[in-house]
C-alpha cells in the first residue's frame, strides 16, 4: 500500500536530494574551462566558509526572515482577532484579504517592482509629493531591504491570519468565560488563556513561514534582483545566481546543502526553545 508513496517520495524527494549531495562533492561547471565533474572532496564546503558573499547573504536572510515572520505573526493575529468580531461586511473582508495568497510570487514581485520603480511607480510618486522623499530602491539599500520585507508581509500575512483565525474559531468559549469570572482582564486573558491555547497553531505557522522566508527567490529577484549591491541577495537568490547565471553546479549544490542544514538547525532550536522546554516544565 505504501509503494506509490515511497516511489513518488523517492523520485521527487530522495533521489534529487542524494544527487545534490553527490554533486556537492564535485567541481562541475559544464560551461566552464573543464565541463566534466571532478571529485573535489569537501572543497566546496571549505570554500563556503570563507565566502564573504555567502556569509553576508546569511546575515541578510536571517534579518529578512526575522522582520518578515515577526511582523506577519503580529499583524496576522491582530487581523484574525478583527475577523472574529462582528462588523458589517466581515465576510467580504475575510474573503478579499486572502487574495494575495492566490497570486504567484513572480507576479507579486513584478507588481511591486512596477509600483516602486522611480518615475513610473505610484509609491515613489506619492512619497515624493506627500513627504518630499525620494525613494529609489535601486540605490537605497535600507529601503530595498524594507520593501522586500513589506512585500513579503503583504503576500503572506493572509496565510497567518487564516491559520490563526481557524485556531481562534475552534477554541471552546467556556475557558474564556471562566477567565472573566476568575477576574482576568483582557490582557491577562490573552496572555494566560488565548496565547497558550493557540500556541500550537502559532508555532506551526512560524515554522512554515520561516522555512518559506529562508528560501524566498522569485519575488525578491523580480523586485530588486538582489541589489542594490548584495543588500537583498537572500540565500535562495544567492544559490540561484551561483547555479544558473554562473552554472557553478558543484558549489551551488554545496550551498544548498548547507542552507538546508541551517534551516533544520534553526527550526530545531526554535522547537527546543518554545515546545520542548515547556513540556518539561512541571510546577508543584
Amino acid at each position: 500500500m505504501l509503494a506509490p508513496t515511497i516511489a513518488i517520495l523517492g523520485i521527487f524527494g530522495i533521489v534529487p536530494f542524494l544527487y545534490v549531495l553527490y554533486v556537492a562533492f564535485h567541481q562541475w561547471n559544464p560551461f566552464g574551462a573543464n565541463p566534466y565533474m571532478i571529485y573535489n572532496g569537501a572543497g566546496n564546503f571549505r570554500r563556503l566558509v570563507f565566502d564573504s558573499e555567502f556569509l553576508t547573504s546569511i546575515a541578510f536572510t536571517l534579518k529578512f526572515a526575522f522582520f518578515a515572520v515577526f511582523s506577519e505573526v503580529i499583524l496576522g493575529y491582530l487581523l484574525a482577532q478583527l475577523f472574529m468580531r462582528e462588523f458589517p461586511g466581515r465576510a467580504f473582508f475575510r474573503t478579499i484579504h486572502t487574495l494575495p495568497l492566490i497570486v504567484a510570487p513572480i507576479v507579486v514581485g513584478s507588481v511591486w517592482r512596477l509600483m516602486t520603480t522611480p518615475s513610473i511607480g505610484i509609491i515613489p510618486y506619492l512619497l515624493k509629493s506627500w513627504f518630499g522623499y525620494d525613494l529609489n530602491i535601486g540605490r537605497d539599500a535600507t529601503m530595498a531591504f524594507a520593501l522586500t520585507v513589506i512585500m513579503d508581509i503583504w503576500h503572506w500575512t493572509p496565510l497567518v491570519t487564516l491559520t490563526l483565525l481557524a485556531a481562534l474559531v475552534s477554541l471552546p468559549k467556556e475557558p474564556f468565560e471562566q477567565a472573566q469570572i476568575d477576574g482576568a482582564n483582557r490582557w491577562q486573558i490573552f496572555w494566560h488563556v488565548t496565547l497558550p491555547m493557540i500556541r500550537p497553531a502559532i508555532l506551526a505557522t512560524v515554522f512554515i513561514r520561516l522555512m518559506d522566508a529562508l528560501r524566498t527567490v522569485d519575488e525578491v529577484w523580480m523586485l530588486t534582483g538582489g541589489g542594490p549591491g548584495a543588500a537583498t541577495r537572500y540565500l535562495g537568490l544567492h544559490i540561484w545566481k551561483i547555479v544558473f547565471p554562473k552554472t557553478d553546479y558543484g558549489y551551488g549544490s554545496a550551498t544548498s546543502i548547507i542552507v538546508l542544514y541551517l534551516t533544520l538547525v534553526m527550526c530545531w532550536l526554535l522547537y527546543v526553545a518554545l515546545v520542548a522546554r515547556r513540556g518539561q516544565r512541571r510546577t508543584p
Partner: protein
Amino acid sequence: MAQVTVRNIVKRYGSVQVIHGVNVDIADGEFVILVGPSGCGKSTLLRMIAGLEPISDGEISIGGRVVNDVLPKDRDIAMVFQNYALYPHKNVADNMGFSLKIKGRPKAEIDAKVKKAAEILDLGKLLDRFPKQLSGGQRQRVAMGRAIVRDPQVFLFDEPLSNLDAKLRVAMRVEIKELHQRLGTTIVYVTHDQIEAMTMADKIVVMRDGKVEQIGAPLNLYDNPGNVFVAGFIGSPAMNFIKGSIDSKDGEQIFVSDTGTVLPAGGVKAQGGQQVIYGIRPEHIDITPDGLPATVSVLEPTGSETQVFAKLGGDAIDAIVKDRLTVRPGEEVRLRIDPRRVHIFDRRSGARL
C-alpha cells in the same frame, strides 16, 4: 455568602424575547435549583446572574448590591460549567489557583488555599496532572475546587453533572450536597434533571418558556404542584394524566374520563361538568383485590419495585408497586387509586383546582 435577588428579569435577543419578567428570591446560604426543559431559559438566567449575558430589563442584586452593570470578575461569584471549562494548558493546581494568581496573591497563600480545596475534594494526588489526564469526574471536581478556592459569595453551577455517567452523577450529587452543608455558601444550580433538583435543592424554581411556573421546596412541589406542567415535570416516573370531567354520584364528586372510566375524585373544588385533567402519581396507585380492573400491557421489574403499564378502560395508566407481580401482559390487575393523592387541574388553563 449573600442573598441573590432577581427582579422582573427580561432577556431579549433582537426581537425575540426568551425570558419574560422572572422573579426569584434566594436567601443567604440557600441551595436553589433552576429546573426546566431545554430552552426554558434557566441557563440564560444563570449566565445573567454571572454577568456573562447582558440583562435586557429588570434588576439582579447579589448581597444587596445591584450588579446589572458590574463585570463578572467584580461580582464575587464562582461558576462551574457543564463541560468544566478547565484551562487545558494548566495543571490542576494552576487551574485552581488561577483566580488568586490573577489577583496577585502571594504564592504561599495560593498554595495553601489550593491544598485545602484539594483536600476537601480528594484531589491531593492529582495536583500535577493536566486536564486531559483526568477522568470526567476528576475534571468536575477540579472545576468545583477552582470555585471553592475563590471563596465566593455565590456558587453558580450550570448543569455540572450532565456529562457524567449515571453512577458518577449520583456520587457527585452527594458530594455537592455535602460541600454545600460544609461551606454554607449560597448556590444557584441549573439542571434539566428533576431528580437532581429534588434530591439537592432547598428550593426549586421550575421554569418553562422563559417564565417561572412554580417556586417551592422539593416536597412541596411534589405534593402540591401548581399546574399540569409542574405536576408532570416533578416526580419520576411522571404523573398519570387522564382527560375528562367532574360529575357527582350519590352526592359525592367523581371523575369521568373522556373514554368513560369512573375514578374517585376526592374533595375537589370543581363544578359538576367542568372539563379537567385528572392526575395521579404512579406510586399512589396500589394493586388490591377491591380495585378497578385494568389490563396489563407491559411490566418493568427493577428488583426493588415493579412498574406496571396498564389500560384502565380506554386510558393508559402506570403504577409502581413494591411487590413482585406474577401477572403477565394481557392479564387483569385491580388498581386502587388513593383519592387523597389525586390532583385535579383545569383542562383549559392547566391550573390546579
